[in-house]
């Protein structure tokens, strides 16, 4: 059945498009040094210093920043951290949501009461303001705090949907059969329940990665990240702080946002495809 799902996923046009976009970004990230014309923090080369705030030229295809960095190179290198933060946050968030959802949904009782309670609190507390407050208290600016803060506030939604799915799967008869057979509870969770919620886990990963990418960009845009790191978010921060708009420098703030959106879209597309595949009512029609 998982094989069938994978087949459906690959046959799905939206999923395929999403996968292609993502792979392109991954390739760009991995081979950034080969693709980018300059180093991200390079201001001069053999021909001399780079101009400041240059318009796109044949040498600097997307112009330069106020400090003379090549924007295209920063964009390419920026893929690395952006993708890393997004995916790592997505993985951590999904993992936390999955663990809590499984425990809460299968073992029920007190544990479930406590987890569900904390969960519903985290669900209603608006995450971005919380992230901003927490992030502004943290004095060490860098990638790690951002990942931690985003994961800390991002798991609630996933945990909620996974829990309710686990609850319904654990009422299914094959779980009862396993219990009657005397199966070990952990084997029940991992062998009987987990394979049946794979599509939901994937959906959680796609959604939380999408949210993490946007969240990261927002935090960095406000200046709560490490502003010296090279990501699409900090590029927008510098563009905004140096009034790129007023200099008519569309090449400065347009591309990073477009890339964020494209990367986000790839996850949104895969998420949508998963929805289509796992919901027979949507699939049938």
């Amino acid at each position, binding site marked *: 059945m998982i094989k069938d799902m994978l087949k459906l996923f690959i046959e799905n046009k939206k999923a395929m498009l999403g996968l292609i976009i993502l792979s392109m970004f991954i390739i760009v990230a991995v081979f950034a040094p080969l693709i980018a014309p300059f180093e991200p923090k390079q201001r001069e080369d053999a021909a001399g210093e780079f101009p400041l705030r240059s318009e796109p030229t044949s040498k600097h295809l997307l112009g330069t920043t106020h400090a003379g960095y090549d924007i295209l190179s920063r964009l390419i290198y920026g893929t690395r951290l952006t993708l890393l933060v997004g995916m790592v946050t997505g993985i951590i968030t999904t993992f936390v949501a999955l663990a809590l959802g499984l425990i809460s949904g299968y073992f029920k009782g007190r544990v479930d009461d406590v987890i569900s309670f904390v969960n519903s609190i985290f669900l209603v507390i608006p995450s971005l303001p919380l992230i*901003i407050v927490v992030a502004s208290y943290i004095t060490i600016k860098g990638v790690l705090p951002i990942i931690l803060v985003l994961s800390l506030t991002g798991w609630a939604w996933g945990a909620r949907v996974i829990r309710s799915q686990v609850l319904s799967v654990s009422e299914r008869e094959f779980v009862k059969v396993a219990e009657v057979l005397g199966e070990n509870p952990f084997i029940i969770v991992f062998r009987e329940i987990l394979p049946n919620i794979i599509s939901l886990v994937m959906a959680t990963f796609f959604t939380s990665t999408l949210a993490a990418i946007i969240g990261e960009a927002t935090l960095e845009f406000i200046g709560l990240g490490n502003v010296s790191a090279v990501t699409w978010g900090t590029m927008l921060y510098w563009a905004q702080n140096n009034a790129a*708009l007023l200099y008519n420098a569309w090449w400065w703030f347009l591309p990073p946002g477009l890339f964020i959106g494209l990367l986000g879209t790839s996850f949104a597309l895969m998420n949508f495809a998963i*929805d289509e595949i796992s919901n027979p009512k949507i699939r049938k029609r």
Partner: protein
Amino acid sequence: MRYFLRRTMWLIFAIFVALTINFILPRLMPGDPAMIIINQLDGLQPQAIDSIRAAFGLETDKSIFVQYWDYLVNISQGDLGVSISHYPAKVWDVLAKALPWTIGLMGIATVLSFIFGTMLGIAIAWKRKSKVSDAILGLFLFIRSFPYFWFGLILVYFFAFKNPWFPLGGAHSISVTTADGWAYIKSIIYHGLLPGAVITISSLGYWMLTIRNNMINVLAEDYITVAKAKGLSINRIKNTYAARNAILPSISGFAMAFGFVIGGSLVTEMVFSYPGVGFMLFQAVQQQDYPLLQAIFLFITVGVLISNFIADILIMLLDPRIRDGAK
């Protein structure tokens, strides 16, 4: 009635939890926030330092429980401490100036996007097989993937900077005041259009997608087939039989999504220098005005909780099963 009681108690309880989190947060953080504040305001007299500690509720000589109690008492009296960036103004007074702008802009934009998104979602689910529906769906899937602030930047660039059809920022032009009456209101609307559009369009996709999926689920139900067999008009089937059922889960999901939308809207204000809570949050972050920061967090949270509560009540009015406690 039991349902109403339960939701009311949850509201009160959740507000209490939000207050507590707000209290705990600065105490969990490494370092002494009071010292950060004090360092910022150079050359303070020792008495002034003490008064800041007192105002901030960070009196190191008192036990945490006493601090907590004082904090609750202060809050209940509307005392949120002193703002650092607007020293010595009270946080509450600073906040009070920003709140109406945000509530007005965000409230209208959110309601509009919910209404338009829902209507659009119903329409594209109904005409599921058409190319137009697919195109709309794809477009909003795409828009939804952008950060609000970037979308705001683009609109400002094209519609305010390149073509000066709209103002670059602010809530009204400096030349008008309340005394100008209608001209003042016109200016406010004019300034609100672009940021409002950003919030509406950016969040629309979320509502649209939710209602579309609900609608598709509902359209597969037997009672829709029965309604068709009965010979009801298309509108009756679409609105009373399908949409009314599809909207229910959408409303109960509203609160959680609302928290997300608010986040985006806050940043939108920053882009437009709109004098609301979001822009103030931005300034508070940059100037490390923690008392203000926390007060804003508290207000937004309470706002979300209350809209959550309103959604719950709405569901109760719309779904007879919930009214009877059968669900």
